[in-house]
C-alpha cells in the first residue's frame, strides 16, 4: 500500500482521458492535443500523474515521437523560445 502523502501530493486518482472520451484520437498531427501531456520541458508526463492508461500512454509516446521528428513538437524546451 502506498503512503498517504502520495495521494495528497498527486491528487486523487484520475481516469484515462482517452478511455473516458472515445472521440479523442491520438495522432502526431494534432500537437495542440498532445501538448497537454508533455511537461514544460517537453518531456512526456508520467502516467501516474496524467492518469493515462498503459495502452494509451504507448500510443501517446509514439505520437509524440513522430510529432518531434517533423518539428510539430519540441524535443526539449530548454534554450528554445
Amino acid at each position, binding site marked *: 500500500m502506498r503512503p498517504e502523502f502520495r495521494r495528497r*501530493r*498527486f*491528487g*486523487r486518482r*484520475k481516469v484515462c*482521458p482517452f478511455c473516458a*472520451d472515445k472521440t*479523442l484520437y491520438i*495522432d*502526431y*498531427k*494534432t*500537437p*495542440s*492535443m498532445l*501538448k*497537454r501531456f508533455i*511537461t*514544460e*520541458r517537453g*518531456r512526456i*508526463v*508520467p502516467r501516474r*500523474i*496524467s492518469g493515462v492508461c498503459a495502452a494509451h500512454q504507448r500510443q501517446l509516446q509514439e505520437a509524440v515521437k*513522430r510529432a*518531434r*521528428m*517533423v*518539428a*510539430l*513538437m*519540441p*524535443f526539449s524546451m530548454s534554450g*528554445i523560445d
Partner: protein
Amino acid sequence: MIMARSYETIIITRPDYETDSVEKLHERLLKAIDEKGGVELKLVDWGRRKLAYPISGHRKGNYYYWGFIASPDCLSEVHRFLKLSSDVIRFQTITLSDAKPLGAFDIVKEKERVEALTPDPQDDEDPIRRDRRDRRRRRDDDEDGDDDDDNDDDDDDQEDA
C-alpha cells in the same frame, strides 16, 4: 505481382521556397509514383508554420501532407528524391496499411482513410482544455458547484522536472 502499402509523408521545405516550386516538387513525386507503381491519394498544403525547433538554421518551414500507395521500389524512389532535394529540410513517412497487391487496394476507401488522418495542425483548439474550460465556466456560473481538481495539470508538470 506488385505488393504495396499506403503511406503518409510529411514534407517540410525551406521557408523561402517559392510557390511554383511546390508544383515542381509534386511533379517529381508523381513521376516517382507513376514509374514505379503507386497511386497518389492526397496532397495537402499545411502552409508555413513555425518549427518547434530550428532545422538546418530555419525557424519556419512549409508543411505538406502527402498520402499515397506505393510499392517498396516506389517508396525508395520517393525517399531518394526527398533526400536529394535541397529544398526539403525534413520528411517523415508513416505506414498506414498492410502490404497487399497494388490492384487489391480500394482507392476510395484509402482516400477516406487519408482524409480521416488529416486534421489541420493549424487548429490549435485542444479538446481536453476546451472541455475543462467549459466545466470551469459552468462552475463559475453556478457558485456552489463541487470543488473539482481541474487546476492540477500545470502544477503536476513541475513534479516531473
